[in-house]
């Protein structure tokens, strides 16, 4: 593998790192918000 492929590989690794990282961030936000809404709604119903 030549040096060019090292840079190409790095570019694709960074891309997937950012996309997967942001996907995890969004899904954590969704889960946290749903839990918060459920607990707040339950507290209000009591």
């Amino acid at each position: 593998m030549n040096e060019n492929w090292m840079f190409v590989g790095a570019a694709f690794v960074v891309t997937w790192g950012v996309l997967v990282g942001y996907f995890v961030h969004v899904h954590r936000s969704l889960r946290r918000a749903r839990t918060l809404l459920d607990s707040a709604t339950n507290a209000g119903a009591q």
Partner: protein
Amino acid sequence: MSNAAIAPAVAVPRAGRWPMFGWFAFLFLVASQVIAVAISPPDRDMGDLQKIMYVHVPAAWMTMLAPLTVLVFSLRYLWKQHEEDDLLAASAAEVATAFAGLTLVLGMIWARPTWGVWWTWDARLTSMLVLFLILAGYLALRALVDDRERRAQWSAAVGVLGAINVPIVYMSVRWWRTIHQIQSNPSTVDPAYVIGLRLNAFAFLFVMIYFIRRRYEAALLERAAEHAIEAVALGRGRDTAHE
């Protein structure tokens, strides 16, 4: 207290078919990248480095497209004062920041072997950095201001400012001829590279739409939860006052 008393301030969204759209975007991206890398021959001058184009260029396009979404919904918020527009603009701004950061890093990875430096104060690079900083400032502003109305108004103003920078980023390679190449189009790119670039541009677009929609969904849920908590606290306060 009844449930009717804690009706959310914003509509509570449903995921609907968006998770399925996410899978479609993911598989489309994987297929696009495999096809682009597999079918494109090495470039005469850059060799295999050309393959960085399939991630750098679509990421740059999304960095210019997402702030336009921020612009549309910021202006709509300033006009109609609907909180949903502010939340959608903020969701698009967060996604735009991620793409702007990615574009800058990918540009540096491409610059090192082609220009011999990781960074240079070229007009395109500098204007893209300014856009990234405006977007990061937008997010910092939202984290610092507690008052919802003021936060929405100030961020709408910063969102408009960020979007004004987009045509400057786009035209920078023509207005200030420095080291970054000018925009390409299908007539200036070899057909062997056009299909891979188009596929990846659509793949990034689908991923961006998915990210903005799901982030907006999370923002709406967060807002509905905040409203429910406030309503519960208000109800308890009222109950205590009656005792």
